[in-house]
């Protein structure tokens, strides 16, 4: 059961990941050669549908999981959202008040790291301490 689910998930995510990489490449190359304006914004947003597709694939994966794994995922996402939100708000204030210069792309990285750390934490908790 788990192997079939993993294969299905990889099939779902593999295609969209390739599409995402291709769209980021195309958007990056094309938009840099364009004059600033609405069309350039549209081109820069080309990767957006593949990100939405990834989110949909992730939701489908979550729905296929059994109840304990769903709980683990939801708890991990809740913790990750709370922690990453606090960190991003803190960095925003530091940036606003000139204490530390940060860039917007770091927010995605913070969210990803928090999500991974929360996944590990919640899984270990249910395995050893819950």
């Amino acid at each position, binding site marked *: *059961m*788990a192997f079939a689910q993993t294969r299905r998930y990889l099939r779902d995510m593999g295609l969209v990941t390739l599409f995402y990489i291709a769209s980021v490449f195309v958007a990056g190359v094309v938009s840099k050669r364009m004059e600033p304006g609405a069309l350039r914004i549209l081109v820069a947003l080309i990767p957006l549908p593949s990100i939405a597709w990834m989110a949909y694939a992730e939701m489908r994966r979550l729905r296929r*999981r*059994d*109840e*304990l*794994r769903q*709980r683990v995922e939801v708890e991990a996402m809740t913790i990750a959202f709370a922690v990453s939100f606090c960190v991003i708000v803190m960095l925003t204030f530091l940036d606003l008040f000139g204490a530390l210069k940060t860039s917007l792309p770091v927010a995605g990285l913070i969210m990803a790291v928090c999500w991974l750390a929360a996944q590990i934490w919640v899984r270990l908790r*249910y*395995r050893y*301490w*819950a």
Partner: protein
Amino acid sequence: MNNRVRELRSSSGWSQAELADRLDVSRQTVNAIETGKYDPSLPLAFAIARLFGESIEAIFIPGK
């Protein structure tokens, strides 16, 4: 909540993986239920009770 899932599974001669297959859940879920780290949902508790031919109250005992 305490439960007799491990005892019933052992007496049926099933591994955790076999029980997980019969209940359509992961082996980790069976392990978490057996060790008391996770209390199953009502539908899963009914499925466990049905599988072992016992009532829910005979398998899941309110405790801690």
